[in-house]
């Protein structure tokens, strides 16, 4: 190719690229974008609420990303996200942020559906996670090695679990470390000898969709959304949307929408307890 035709080619490509970036359909140009990041527990619900919000307020775009509650806190603090999703209460050092209660959820222990073990005491769970119980037959199950599934650092489900069992993360001897709830559920569903802990809402949702996992009762209380609703389940936690004041108007509208009665069916479809019930 001669130099002249190369320059011609470059000019042509530049023209095409400029047109592509400068011209966009009417709808996109007017769209306001809202970014939510944080807990993988809340992300599916936030996506559903976001979709309904987009239908009612045309020209808006709600972008939901997971990454853990700590990510939500971080992103709201440095302005990357307008709203953070945090699946626990705020700590004293997080008083610069505002929490808006979205729903209630619990943290439940999950096993593979084929595992004959029906219940585990707190001490047994503690021993399994710290590596003292390494075979299921020691707790009345099959003769098979336990596969311990733990959550990655920065996830509030991990913090709540450690808090409840009074353990430190360095004391846990995991075999697999997972990030999102869905990764944990898929890992346990694919391994008959695995034990893990995830959001009750996420686990119940997957069980109803046929995945071979089951939730264990904690301290004798069944891990169901009903027990989270009536407050008897020992490891329940609030699902919060957090913002930093002053927040923009779109964020305020979204939070109002998320707390209204219009989305209760969405909350219950994800097996969480709507905020006004408790």
């Amino acid at each position: 190719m001669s130099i002249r035709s190369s320059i011609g080619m470059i000019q042509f490509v530049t023209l095409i690229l400029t047109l592509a970036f400068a011209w966009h359909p009417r709808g996109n140009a007017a769209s306001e974008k809202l970014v939510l990041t944080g807990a993988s527990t809340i992300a599916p619900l936030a996506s559903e609420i976001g979709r309904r919000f987009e239908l009612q307020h045309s020209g808006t775009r709600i972008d939901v990303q997971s990454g853990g509650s700590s990510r939500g806190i971080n992103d709201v603090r440095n302005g990357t996200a307008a709203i953070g999703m945090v699946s626990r209460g705020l700590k004293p050092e997080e008083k610069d942020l505002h929490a808006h209660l979205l729903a209630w959820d619990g943290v439940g222990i999950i096993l593979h559906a084929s595992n004959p073990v029906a219940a585990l005491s707190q001490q047994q769970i503690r021993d399994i996670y710290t590596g003292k119980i390494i075979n299921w037959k020691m707790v009345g199950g099959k003769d098979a090695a336990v596969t311990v599934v733990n959550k990655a650092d920065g996830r509030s489900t991990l913090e709540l679990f450690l808090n409840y069992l009074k353990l430190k993360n360095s004391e846990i001897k995991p075999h697999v470390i997972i990030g999102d709830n869905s990764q944990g559920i898929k890992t346990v569903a694919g391994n008959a000898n695995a034990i893990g802990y995830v959001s009750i809402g996420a686990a119940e949702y997957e069980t109803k969709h046929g995945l071979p996992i089951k939730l264990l009762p904690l301290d004798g209380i069944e891990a169901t959304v009903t027990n989270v609703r009536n407050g008897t389940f020992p490891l329940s936690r609030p699902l919060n949307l957090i913002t930093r004041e002053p927040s923009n108007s779109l964020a305020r509208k979204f939070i109002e929408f998320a707390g209204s009665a219009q989305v209760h069916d969405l909350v219950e479809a994800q097996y969480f307890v709507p905020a006004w019930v408790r």
Partner: protein
Amino acid sequence: MLWLLHGAAGIAAAIVLLILLFLAVEAWPILRHIPLLHFFTDASWHPGEGMYNLTPMLSGTLYAAAGALLLAVPLGVASSLFVLYYASPGLANGYLRLVELLAGIPSVVYGFWGLTTLVPLINQIHAPGASLLAGILILTLMILPTVALTAHAALLAVPHEYIRGAVALGMSQWGIIRGVALPAAKAGIVAGVTLATGRAVGETMAVLMVTGNVVQHAHSPFDPVRTLAANIALEMPYAMSDHRAALFLSGLLLMMLVMILWGLPAWPRKDIHG
């Protein structure tokens, strides 16, 4: 016109240097109060408790990449030899298209397939399934097309006179391949292997989903490991101050590793044209 070429090359080089500079600047805060040695001698990787040992993750990265290369290089070179010298034209064409298709599959699809199919399969042989072996197998699948396609291109570029001369001398098919074609294509094949190594060392998403992510040295292929890249992906979203700087340092380490691996093939060069 030359200035345009110089400019383009300069921009590419400048970007690499800027990235290195950025990594170094972001990693600097932690190097000020934690000596570099601690990153290799601390008890474990627990940023919440101020411990930053990178060696288990470094070994995980190296084991996974080495294992994948050990499997992918012979298979890749063998594939390209099969396509060029042993297969019928129709079969060769079809096979080549399949390998190209393999190259185009996104990494996250490999990871998803690994998590839902490969990991439970390995679990039946030896718990927990999410392991170094799973990581090696997934990485092999990902770098195999790179090695195969570059080896194919390198072998195609072997001058026909060499082959004709060898045939005229009465050499056997395998003799020609081993004695003439492969040595002549060596530079190209090594380039392909280097590319594949870079990918194997840096692959994040797929490895994150199948290797178990436990920070430990692997004592058997069935042990879960965590690679440097997967660690950055897992922890960067929420890391703050020291922890964040430690992650940038591990990123810098990863980049140094890739640079060393890329530099190795070039090092013993005495005569480029063999």
